[in-house]
């Protein structure tokens, strides 16, 4: 695997001959901001630039970065919900970056999403049954009866009772709602599961449950996982390999344990050292110390 043009990325990865689940080549996405002046061109924001990456089948890949680092934009492009302004994206060997939405039908049962906000990701006016069956309806899979059976099967697979199907989203807690989200994502039998900060909006006590659920379904359904988070400690729990993203670029891509044990890029080192540590907390080094440490490392902030 060759280095990207920028040359800054620290890469440590295995070479594989198989067709990767997701292949990104020099992907960039620019956004035009509103024009500020009549005579000057509108300013451009480079949300994602020069991202090159292969995610192998069955891999659990994490993308970490602070908010505004471009990880969500990258994710939307991987899911075919947005198009890159440069570069190419292939999912299971088929290009998606230059296809109109109408020709991405196959992608919709190959790749599915779980969202961050359990309040906004389920339509408040729909019953759980219809929410979970939505991908099946959209893709015209199965008859009414077959869908009903499938919904029950999926709800049970994510640890919800069958009678949840007749209730509305507001009758569930945040963690349960994320379970519904996962059930919906599994409905069309995808090969790739993309999770956009799936536990960031949850209480700490519920996080572990949802992370374990994602862990289980990735194992049980043989999925490739792309997991985005701003929290390294969460990524560590589920991912084999992690990319650290900053200002639209990957600064380091490495197997998880290596990244934690031996972060190479200064930004990664900063992130790793900012993970709350039980021993440090017991030693009396509180959040204030961490805050000071962060401030010292990034004087511009």
């Amino acid at each position, binding site marked *: 695997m060759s280095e990207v043009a920028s040359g800054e990325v620290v890469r440590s990865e295995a070479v594989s001959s198989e067709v990767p689940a997701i292949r990104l080549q020099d992907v960039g996405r620019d956004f035009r901001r509103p024009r500020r002046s009549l005579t000057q061109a509108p300013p451009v924001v480079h949300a994602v630039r020069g991202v090159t990456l292969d995610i192998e089948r069955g891999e659990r890949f994490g993308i970490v970065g602070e908010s505004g680092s471009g990880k969500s934009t990258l994710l939307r492009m991987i899911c075919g*919900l947005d198009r890159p302004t440069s570069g190419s994206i292939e999912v299971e060997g088929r290009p998606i970056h230059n296809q109109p*939405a109408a020709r991405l039908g196959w992608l*919709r049962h190959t790749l599915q999403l779980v*969202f961050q906000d359990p309040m906004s*990701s389920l*339509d408040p006016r729909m019953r759980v049954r219809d929410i979970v069956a939505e991908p099946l309806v*959209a*893709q015209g899979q199965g008859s009414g009866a077959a869908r009903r059976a499938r919904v029950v099967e999926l709800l049970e697979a994510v640890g919800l009772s069958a009678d949840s199907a007749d209730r509305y989203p507001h*009758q569930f807690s945040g963690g349960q709602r994320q379970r519904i989200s996962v059930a919906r994502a599994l409905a069309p039998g995808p090969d790739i599961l993309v999770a956009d900060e799936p536990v960031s909006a949850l209480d700490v006590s519920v996080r572990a449950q949802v992370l374990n659920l994602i862990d289980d379904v990735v194992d049980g359904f043989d999925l490739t996982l792309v997991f985005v988070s701003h929290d390294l400690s969460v990524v560590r729990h589920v991912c084999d390999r992690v990319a650290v993203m900053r200002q639209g670029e990957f600064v380091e891509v490495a197997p998880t344990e290596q990244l934690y044990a031996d972060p190479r890029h200064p930004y990664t080192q900063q992130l790793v050292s900012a993970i709350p540590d039980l021993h440090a907390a017991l030693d009396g080094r509180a959040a204030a110390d961490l805050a000071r440490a962060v401030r010292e490392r990034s004087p511009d902030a």
Partner: protein
Amino acid sequence: MSEAGSPAGMMPSTPVVGTGRRHLNPSLFVGGGLVLLVVAMALVSYVWTPYPPMRVLGTEAYQTPNADFWLGTDRFRRDVLSQILVGARTTLYVGVVAVGVAALVGVPLGILAAMSGGWLGQTVMRANDILLAFPALLLAIMFAALYGGSTQVAMIAIGIATIPSFARITRSGALGVMSTDYVTAARAAGHGPFAIALRHVLPNVAGLVIVQASVAFAIAILAEAALAYLGLGTPTGQASWGRMLYEAQSTLRSAPHLVLVPGAAIALAVLGFNLFGDGLRDYLDPKLERR
């Protein structure tokens, strides 16, 4: 996390589920009552009126309310109560058709504008602004001049003039819906824009549209009365509250009840629909629900 750990002042609020916290607010109650009254009057008029409403009776004109004629008689010796009852029909008919026309055109346009964005959305909304700049009554007078004055022409004109308010409010609601993750999820599930509009956008803006409809209903009633009063709406020989006002204006001093009765009917109906709309807005607003 132990129970003792949560201080009394910060009781973890159990999520408000369903309709538990919703109360019938006074606006909804009073408005709903007045609306029901108008509907009841219209319904009653189909089975019973004290006298045939438009028939000239063998009695004196300009009677004040009395035992035989509860709301008196007008100058053509017709019974006022019967006309008021039948007039409620006209009022509701005009309201329903005008609001129907406005909603059927305005809501899809609003959703289209919100979902398409770009030049198409802009074009729709600018066209909307142009129509909005046109006073409803002026449009109705123009229609009356072109197609003659009738209840049908009046309500179509009122309906067309009300389209922009529906388009605008639907668009703003739809923009909010379009930015939610469940719409993104629907796209990722493979739904096209049309399915998303029907499955997600429309049900989630329905509350807004219903509130707008009740307010527009009040405006339509008022506009119909105004047109009938100007002699451009419901023609002579048909019962209409606005028409009754028009016919009574020359005897304002000598027989004030002929103006007061239809005037009060119009005022109460408009008030009723306005209050109902306000009450409904509070009732359906999820933010107020939490209080």
